[in-house]
């Protein structure tokens, strides 16, 4: 482990149990074994168990901001809990150098009947800070949360946004070396989110490490240089933000296609997309377009047997996953006739009506392969 590495995760696995009753049963056995100091076989799955995280390994260096994305139930929160040491892995090891500040659940530890003021001091004590530290930071916490008027009201009377603001303000005031944030900013209003992002920026500039989990891809892309894509407990992608988001979109699209269209025996593809090109009006490849430019999507396909009226689909997504446009030949009544062998099909958008931003063009052909190409 180099001196720059602050988080090092090696072959970490964690299992969970689907059935609550079995969870109790296994829990009693595990706890009894733990208490009696017996070794247990942690590495095999018992009935109804599954790997919430499966052999996950990665490193994070000092000063990095890493985004953690993935569909629901991918294991993101579990991973954060393990990093924070709330629970222990079943396999592998986690090394953290530096003090961790975690916002796994904003306002965890707030007591509803206590006032904001009392809760700030209590949270500070829970996170291990002295009275002096909290007294010193108190005003800036209240300022940051923007709760001057309500600081002496019980927090159960706060709106959920106010709750979150107070939680975030307390967490950043603790000045951690590593900050872990779990989908926390989603509840705050636009002004507060801006403030959070600014604060995160300031943290990055100060050489701190940040790990953010979110479903807001547009927001995360602004702050995270690197991203990890988790799915079913596995790391599917790890790299530059744009690339990982592309794989995520790809993953989601694959899921959709699989559910909808892959019912027939599609193991041997009848038709395949071999090439996709995005060109301007003059037919030259390009990846940067102005609003109202002409866009051509050229799809090269290869049919392995004669197919009557295959359905081609083209969709355009904004990089945060927003679906902007979609068309398919069947819905638009375009009959391709019987095709066989190789060929190309061209879709023209004479007047591209998209605003500035990054978009993907996803191309698919029915009941066979899909392909897609991110453009920037």
């Amino acid at each position: 482990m180099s001196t720059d590495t602050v988080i090092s995760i090696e072959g970490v696995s964690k299992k969970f149990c689907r059935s609550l009753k079995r969870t109790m049963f296994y829990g009693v056995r595990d706890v009894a074994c733990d208490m009696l100091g017996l070794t247990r076989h942690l590495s095999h799955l018992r009935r109804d168990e599954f790997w919430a995280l499966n052999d996950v390994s990665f490193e994070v260096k000092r000063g990095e901001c890493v985004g953690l994305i993935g569909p629901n139930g991918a294991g993101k929160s579990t991973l954060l809990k393990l990093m924070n040491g709330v629970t222990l892995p079943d396999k592998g090891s986690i090394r953290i150098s530096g003090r961790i500040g975690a916002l796994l659940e904003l306002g965890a530890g707030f007591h509803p009947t206590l006032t904001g003021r009392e809760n700030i001091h209590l949270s500070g004590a829970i996170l291990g800070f002295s009275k002096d530290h909290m007294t010193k930071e108190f005003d800036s916490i209240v300022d940051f949360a923007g709760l001057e008027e309500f600081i002496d009201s019980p927090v159960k009377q706060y709106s959920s946004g106010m709750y979150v603001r107070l939680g975030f303000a307390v967490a950043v005031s603790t000045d951690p070396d590593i900050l872990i944030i779990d989908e926390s900013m989603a509840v705050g209003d636009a002004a507060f989110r801006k403030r959070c992002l600014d604060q995160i920026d300031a943290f990055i500039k100060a050489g701190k490490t940040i790990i953010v989990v979110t479903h807001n891809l547009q927001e995360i892309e602004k702050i995270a240089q690197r991203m990890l894509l988790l799915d079913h407990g596995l790391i599917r992608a790890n790299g530059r933000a744009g690339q990982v988001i592309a794989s995520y979109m790809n993953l989601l699209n694959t899921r959709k296609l699989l559910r909808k269209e892959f019912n027939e025996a599609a193991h041997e593809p009848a038709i395949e997309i071999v090439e996709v090109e995005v060109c301007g009006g003059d037919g030259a490849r390009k990846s940067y377009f102005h609003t109202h430019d002409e866009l051509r999507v050229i799809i090269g396909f290869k049919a392995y047997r004669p197919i009557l009226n295959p359905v081609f689909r083209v969709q355009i997504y904004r990089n945060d996953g927003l679906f902007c446009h979609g068309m398919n030949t069947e819905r638009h009544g375009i009959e391709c006739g019987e095709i066989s062998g190789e060929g190309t099909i061209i879709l023209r958008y004479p007047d591209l009506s998209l605003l500035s931003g990054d978009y993907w063009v996803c191309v698919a052909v029915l009941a066979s392969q899909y392909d897609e190409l991110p453009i920037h």
Partner: protein
Amino acid sequence: MPVMENTIGQLSANASKPMESKIAVAEYTPRGIRRDGLAGWRLMLIELAESRRLIWLLILRDLSVRYRQSILGYVWAIIPQIATVGVFAFLHASRVLPIGGTRIAYVAYALWGISIWQLFAGCLSSCTTSLVSSGSLVTKVNFPREALVIAALGQPVFDFFVRLVPVVAVFIWYGVTPSWGIIFLPFVLMPVMLLALGLGFVLSIANLVIRDTGNALGTVLTIGMFLTPVLYPPPVRWPFFLVNLLNPLSPLLTASQDLIAAGFLTRPEMFAVACVLSLVLALIGWRAFRVTIPRVAGYA
């Protein structure tokens, strides 16, 4: 928003202060602290010392929150005890229940006994539910979570002092003068609390995994009160005194009664055994708690 700019300036200025030379390195593996042995004990003691203030704040929180939405407030600490003693005083006086002679007036005896019992039972049930009632704090925040269990002692101990008010009143009414031995009372109360804490550590974990624990405890404590010489003098005939002999709380209760009525311990050896047992149980419970809490944090 000028205030906002200002705040960011402050916080980031704070954030950019030079990093301390000593960087804490934490390593999490499936084995937890079990492999640490004695070093594990040292770590536990350091963390306990560091969480003194947290424990105190949690106690204050529980005390101040408990009766915020209540009219009678702390009177509720006294009502159940007076009601129980009232019923038993009636049964005793009307000779429905033949309760043997006590060293001091029956009402004073019963009231004192039930105060000690309530201290034990209150500590035990409050420790047991401490983790479950903290909810996401246990599952989402990494901090010395034994602080929650230890702080759970605060409420019942405070209640105990509130209950001393009627006890003193009854002692005065019946003209019971406690002996000078009463100054040693804290040395009897400590093992009572340690016993409850040790069991509470284990039961709080059990309650996280299986919620039946909390329900079962209520029943067990009700039965336990009648199996402990709280409302009657300790039985002396065979085999009934066995219940008394096997009950770790009995020697402690008897010792407290001895201190009030006689000023010396009638069964010092039993008291010593109970003290050692309480201490050992508290230490074992604490260690077991530490070893298992990361495992069960997911069950809360």
